Structure formats: C-alpha cells, structure tokens
C-alpha cells in the first residue's frame, strides 16, 4: 500500500504541477515528526500562547440532570476561540523550519482564515487568505479581523464563489509561489500529507483529555462525542482513545433540515455519501450519479462541507467510530441548554456534539462517563447565532445600527 492511505481512503490526487511541492512538504513534515524537539517546541508554544492544556471541565448541572458524569473538553478557550489554533500554530512552526515566509490559506466562514492570520502576525509571515466572494459578503466580522491582523483577504469569484473555489485559488497561488510560500490547509482533508499532518497537530486535544479524565475519574470515558465537518477536532480528541476498544467514539455530522430532506452535510451517517475523488483525496463525498459534488446545508458553516477526513472515513468503515447526525433544530436547542445549564457558549459546530450527547445520555448505563469536545466558542459568532435563534432584540439593534450608519454617511 502507498503512503498516505488509510484503508482505501486518502492518497494524493493532485495535478502534476503540484507533485514536487507535495513531495517537499511531506519530506519536511516527516522530518519534523521524527524530531522530538519539534513537538516539544510546539507544546511550549501552545502552553504560552494558547493557554494549553485546555481544561476538562466537569459539567455538574448536566451530570445531575442526566444521572451520568459529563465532562467538556474546552477547546473553546484556545487563542481565537477554537481548536483551529492547534493546527495553524503547528503549521507555522513547520513553515519556520522550512524557511518559508509567506502563508496562504483558504477559509469558508473565516474561522480558519482568522486563526491563520493570528499565526502569521505572531510569526512575522506575510499572509494571504482566499475566501469565496459570497463568504466575504456574508462574514464581514471575520474579514474585518483578518484585515486588521494584517492579512490580505482575496475574494474568489470563480466557480460557485465559496469554500471549494477558495481552495482551488490557494492551490493556484501555491503552484507559482512554492519556494517561499506554505499553504496552511485548515482541516484533516486534502491530499497527503495534510490529513495526517493536521491530525498530528490536533492530537494534542486527545493526549490531554486522556490524561485529564484518568486524573479526574481514575478510568477512561465510556463515550466521546465530537462534531465532524472536515474532521480535525474529532481526529484530535479521538486519537487519545483509538487504542481503547471500550471507549465509544461518536462523530456527529450536520443533519441540517433532517437527513430525509436532502438538505444536510452528512457524508457518513446518512448513508448517502459515495466514495469518490475530489480536492486531492479519496473519501466519502455527497455527490450525484455523475460524480458531481452536491450542495450541502448546515446551520454551522464549519460543518457545511462536501467531503470528510479520509482517516475518519476509514475509522467509520472499519467500525472503530460511530457516526450520527444532529439537525439544525436539535443543535439550537442544545446550544441554549448548555448556555443555561453550564454557562458555556458553544459554537454552532460544536453544538452538534453536544446535541448528540444529549440525545444519547438518557439511554446510557448510569456508570457512563462522557466527554464532549467543545471545539469552539460561540460568542464570536454572534451575528450567525443571533440570526439562527431569530433573536428579536438583536434584529432591532442591527436595524438601528444600519440606520445610524446611513444617517452619518448621508
């Protein structure tokens, strides 16, 4: 079997012009991985810059209500408020090791782009973020921060003007700039070595969580829940427990308006994903009979993606992980319950893991110990969440704000 495969998934299906670029990156990644000093430097940086280790918070109120012990892994406390920081800082260190000075990245809703912009600012790199023109329009607050952090945000007007077109545009940039530029891919997808490399940086979540739960409970959890878009936060926490067959690992995809509605982004749990090759790798994709990728839907932009990490596809196919889907409605309910009960504000993405845990908790044995990976915080997404909750006060505020601007600029 060739390297970069996980079962039948993964690989590197890239245009020939990128072959050498990927070969050099793979070489640099493997050298870094074989060097313990690199990982130690990474740990020190994450400790000092991103507040790691993030706590494993015991959710006392929920535990009482469900009669089972519930813990929450607090990736929301990272720099820029999500697990994305783990990946960008790791790739930033790799860039420095490779002697590169310019970082490029794709971004959908803007979370990864923003994380990448902070990394570039701290490390002194030039930073260019490719973002679909439609996303630039929809996600002004993240564009604002990226630009203020010194990054150049390039609106991509080709194709469907969204995430996949941003990926393609970043690839085009990389073809002509590989000597000094690194492409900071945002999730555990794409061509080898990205799925493996991003999962490696994210494994910091699982390593910490395993140690923390053993300290707190003196035993391993029975269940671990994580949301799955591209799959990097799930890969991160699952890696702490892959070799413990008694730990049930549950990946939660975006059920959107319900799996039967067709408006979802569930490639594994829905059973409607088919094995294909796109964007450089082989995995389950939501596609039609011709092999054309379908439009996906989720209330959470970060889960609204047509493919899924080839490593998760393999773990799913081999039966090591179980995949489920939570609907937009279930997710909004779970988000509000977690806020009210524990004072935590989860991102819409992370709320999928919370929703699935809430669905299953009443049916678990009383001695169950559950970890929910809270991959990101929601307060930074106030525009999106207030919209999703149809908050009337927020609407009044935005209308008034808009009116103020029109008066002042008139």
């Amino acid at each position, binding site marked *: 079997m060739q390297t970069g495969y996980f079962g039948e998934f993964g690989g590197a299906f*890239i*245009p*020939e012009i990128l072959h050498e670029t990927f070969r050099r990156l793979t070489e640099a990644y493997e050298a870094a991985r074989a060097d313990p000093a690199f990982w130690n430097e990474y740990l020190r940086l994450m400790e000092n810059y991103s507040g790691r280790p993030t706590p494993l918070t015991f959710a006392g109120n929920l535990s009482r209500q469900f009669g089972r012990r519930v813990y929450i892994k607090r990736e929301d406390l990272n720099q820029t408020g999500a697990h994305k920081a783990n990946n960008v800082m790791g790739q930033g260190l790799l860039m420095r090791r490779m002697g590169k000075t310019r970082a490029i990245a794709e971004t959908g809703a803007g979370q990864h782009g923003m994380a990448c912009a902070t990394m570039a600012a701290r490390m002194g790199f030039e930073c260019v973020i490719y973002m679909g023109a439609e996303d630039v329009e929809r996600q002004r607050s993240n564009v604002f921060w990226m630009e203020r952090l010194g990054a150049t945000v390039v609106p991509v007007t*080709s194709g469907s003007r969204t995430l996949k077109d941003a990926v393609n545009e970043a690839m085009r940039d990389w073809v002509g700039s590989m000597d000094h530029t690194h492409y900071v891919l945002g999730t555990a997808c794409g061509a080898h070595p990205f799925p493996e490399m991003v999962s490696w940086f994210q494994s910091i979540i699982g390593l910490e969580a395993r140690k923390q739960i053993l300290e707190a409970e003196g035993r391993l959890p029975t269940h671990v829940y994580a949301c799955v878009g591209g799959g990097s936060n799930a890969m991160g926490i699952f890696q702490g427990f892959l070799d413990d067959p008694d730990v049930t690992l549950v990946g939660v995809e975006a059920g959107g308006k319900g799996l039967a509605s067709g408006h979802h982004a569930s490639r594994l749990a829905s059973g409607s994903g088919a094995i294909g090759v796109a*964007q450089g790798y082989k995995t389950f994709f939501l596609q039609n009979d011709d092999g054309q990728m379908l439009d996906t839907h989720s209330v959470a932009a970060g889960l609204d993606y047509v493919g899924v990490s080839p490593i998760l596809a393999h773990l799913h196919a081999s039966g090591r992980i179980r995949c489920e889907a939570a609907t937009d409605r279930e997710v909004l309910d779970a988000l509000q319950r977690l806020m009210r009960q524990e004072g935590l504000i989860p991102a819409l993405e992370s709320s999928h893991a919370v929703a699935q845990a809430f669905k299953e908790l009443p049916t678990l044995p009383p001695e169950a110990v559950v970890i929910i990976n809270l991959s990101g915080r929601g307060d930074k997404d106030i525009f999106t969440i207030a919209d999703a909750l149809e908050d009337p006060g927020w609407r009044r505020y935005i209308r008034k704000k808009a009116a103020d601007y029109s008066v002042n600029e008139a």
Partner: protein
Amino acid sequence: MTPTPLETHIRARLAAQKTASPILLMSHLVLGHPSLEENRRVIDAMAANGVDLMELQIPFSEPIADGPVIALANQAALDHGFRVEEGLRFIGETVRRHPEIPFLIMTYFNILLARGVERFIREAAELGARGLIIPDLPPQEADAAMAACREFGNGNLDWIQLLTPTSTDERLRFIGERAAGFCYCVARKGVTGKRTDFDAQVRQFIDRCRAAASTPLAVGFGVKWPEDVDALRGVADIAVVGTAAMEHHASGGAIAVGAFFGELSRGRRADSTA
C-alpha cells in the same frame, strides 16, 4: 515503445506541413458551455479553420487543475444541467461528424469513478475517442486506468501524460516512460511576467521534456496570437489553444472562434511557405 496510431497520425500531419519547424493546433472546449448545440457550431468552425486535434472537456464540479476561466465554464455547464450521459453521446456524434480529427476526452477522475473506471474507458474507446487526459490522476495512481486503455482501446485510445516545469528530471523520466500518443506539457505563466524570460523558460522546460519522452509534445501556455504559435515552432509539436478561444467565443460566438483559428493557421501557412 512503438508509436501508437495517434502518434503516427500526429507525425504524418507534421510532415505534411513540409517545413523545417512544423506545428499543429489543438483546441479545447468545455462540453455544455454554453450548450451542446453551440459546442457543435464551435467544433465545426474549428475543424474548418485548421485545428488538427481537439480536447473535449467533460465538466466537473471541482476542476482543480483548471484556470479561473475554464473553471467558471465547468460550473456554468453544470448549472445548465449538463449530464455525463449526453456528453458521451455528443462525443460519439462529433467523432462521426469529423472523422479526420482526433478527439481527446479531458475530465477529472471522479467522473470515471462514478461511472465505473473500466466502463468509462470502454465507452470512450467505443465512441472513437483517441486519448484521455485526466489531470488529477497522477501516473503512480493510474496503472489500472492505463491498463484498461490498452485493453479496450486496442492501441487506439492513449492515456495522455502531463509534464510540468516543477517536475524534477527524474520525475519527467518516470512519466515519459509511460507516455503514449503525445505528452501534454503544462507551461504555466505566473513565475515571471516578462515575456522574454518566459520564452527562455519554456524552451528550457521543453528541452527537458524531449529528453524524458520520445512522443510528440503539446504545449499549453496561453496562446493568444499567431506570434505565440510561431514562438512554439521548432520547440513544440502541438500548440494548445484553450482560454483564448473561449474569450473569442464569449465576444463573437462560433464565427469569432473560426476567424481566430483561421488567423492562427493562416499565420502558420504563410510562415511555412516563406
């Protein structure tokens, strides 16, 4: 390796130009953009104006190897409801309509996977396509597909290899050893903006390709004017014209595309008799 019928055809066309540095023209179009009916008119106009080979692209929703203009055309064709089944039927009709021109199918690997790789290749051979260009299936992944081409094509369906300036000499040799029909050399602009530097770079790259592959070489690097074709004379065997033809089509339809190729091939004839 003995030359395939496609390579023999290309060499005969080159020889027929009776000049020291002949060059063929290969055009590219995206099926279903703007429509198959319009594709038919454009193909007729190309055939009547000196195009030697044609590349027909089956649209894909994730065209990662294409530039922005062609990527947009892929999406537009899909938005208009393009289906692979009718695209293949159209390719069959087109081959019968222009038996003198070798047609190549360009698309992405997922289109083959979704239909069944063997089935797609068998159908392509039956329709009379002469080659497949699949830019996201690198040679180290393509053994089964290449074997299927040999099995179902009986020598008439070549798996076209792509060579790029970023490849090392060793990599070029690895690919060159697997070449059949011709090699497609992707000489992208972007590294330097200066035309003169670019020409020197292309020449150097093509020299490396010659050393690696014994087949004829097609070069695509944004041909826009007759001088661009002349610049490739003595360097490449086939000039690929893609984006420029689409731009002419957008502004003046099939007639403008015909006139554009007419100009490219007239320049070619004038020069070859000079």
